[in-house]
C-alpha cells in the first residue's frame, strides 16, 4: 500500500477529528499547505477506494471517517513489509506465529519460565 504525503496528512486530520467533509479538510489545510478543493476531494476518494475511509452522504456532500485506527494501519503496513515469504496470500511466518499462539498455553509458558529460572540459579551458583 502506497500513501502519498497529502493522503497521510488527511488521514492524520481524520484520526484527530474523527469525521469531516472535503470543505472542512480543505479549510484546515488551506493556510498550511494551500491546494484546491478538488485535490482534497480526489485524495479523499483515493483513500476511500483503498478502504482506509468510510463515507456517508449528507445533503450534497460526503462525510468521511477513518475505517482503520492509526495503530491498525501501522500493523497492516508492518504485515505487508514483514511477510517476505508470502506469495499470493500464503505466509508460513504467519502460520508459525498462529500455531505458536494457539499451541502455547499457560502451562507451557510456565514450564519454559521454570527452565529459565533453573538456568539463572545455576549461573548464580557458578558465579558464587
Amino acid at each position: 500500500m502506497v500513501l502519498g504525503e497529502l493522503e497521510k496528512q488527511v488521514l492524520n486530520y481524520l484520526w484527530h477529528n474523527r469525521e469531516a467533509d472535503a470543505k472542512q479538510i480543505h479549510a484546515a489545510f488551506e493556510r498550511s499547505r494551500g491546494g484546491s478543493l478538488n485535490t482534497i476531494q480526489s485524495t479523499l476518494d483515493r483513500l476511500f477506494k483503498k478502504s482506509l475511509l468510510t463515507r456517508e452522504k449528507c445533503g450534497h456532500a460526503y462525510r468521511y471517517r477513518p475505517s482503520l485506527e492509526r495503530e491498525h494501519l501501522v500493523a497492516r503496513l508492518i504485515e505487508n513489509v514483514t511477510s517476505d515469504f508470502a506469495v499470493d496470500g500464503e505466509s508460513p511466518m504467519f502460520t508459525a506465529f498462529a500455531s505458536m499462539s494457539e499451541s502455547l498455553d499457560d502451562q507451557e509458558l510456565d514450564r519454559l519460565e521454570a527452565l529459565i529460572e533453573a538456568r539463572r540459579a545455576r549461573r548464580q551458583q557458578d558465579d558464587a
Partner: protein
Amino acid sequence: MIQGFWAVLLNHLSLAVAGAGVLLLMQYLTLPGLQRWLPQQPPRVRKYGLLAWAALPWIWLLFYSVFVLAVEGSRHWLGEPPAATPLHWHHRSWLMLDSWHAMALYLFAALLGVGLMRRWRRLRQARASLASLVSLAGGQSGPVRVLETDGLHAFSAGFLHPVSYISRGLLKHLTAQEQRAVLLHEEAHCRRRDNLLHQGFCFCTSLFPTRLRQPLQAELSLATEQLADAYAAARMPSEEVAATLLKVARLQRAQSQPELTLAFFQRQQLSHRVESLLQPERSGLSLFFPVLALLTLALFLGLSMVGLDGLHHAVDAFLIH
C-alpha cells in the same frame, strides 16, 4: 530454425535445463528424508543445508552455462573451430524451434519470467509499504528506528541495507536489558541479510507445490530466528535472551487486539527457541550437509557429459529433436 554458434549455445542451455529438471526430481525424491533429518540438526546446519539443497538446480544451471559459454564462446570469438566434445549430436549447430530442446527453453523462460515477476511485484509492494510506514510512524535515520505506535512490533526490513524497527509500545514494556536482547536479535538478522536469504530461498523453491514449500520455509525461518537468538546470547546471558522471548510472548497473549502484535522477534516456535538458548548447540555435523550437497553437485557435473548425452538421446527417442 537457428543455426551456428547461437544454436550451439541454446542446445547446451536446453540440456542444462533438462539437467536442472533431473535435479529437481532428485529434490522431490529426497525431500521426505530431508524433512526427517533436518529437525534433529543444529540451526546452522539447517540453515545452510536448506539453502544448499534449494539452490542445487540453480547452481548447476549457472556452472554449466558459464562453463559452456567460456569454452564455446572463447573458441567462437577467437575464430577457432568448435571444441572437441564427447557429445555426438547430429544437430549440434542447429536448433529447430518446435523441437523438445526449444520447448524446454520456452518452459524454462516462462517459469523464470513468472517467478521473477512475482518476486519483483512482492518487493515493490513491501518497499511501498515500508515507505508509508516510516512516514506514518516515524522517519528517523540510522540502523535502528523507533516506530511511534503503541503496538508490539520488532522486525528488520530491507535487503541490501536492512534496518531494525522497534515500536514505542514494545520499548515501553521492556527493561534496558530486554531492549538490548531484542535489538541484538534484530541486528543479527540485518548483519546476516536474512531477508535477502529468505527471498532467494523463496525464489529457488518457487517450483515446489505450496504444501511442500511451506514447511521448508518455516524450517528456514526457525533456523534463522534461532541463530539470531544465539547471536544475542553470545553478547549477553542466554537465559536473559530466553526470558525476553518469554516476556514478549506473554505480552502478546495479554494484548487484547492480536492484530497489533506482529512482532517478528516472537514469531517462531517459542519452545524450540527457548530450549535451544538454554542448551549448548551440538557441534560436529556442521559441515555435513553442505559438503554432501557439494559432492552431489560435483558428481552430477562429472556425470553430466555422459549422462546428459544419454538423457538427450533417450528424450529424442520420443520427441522431435
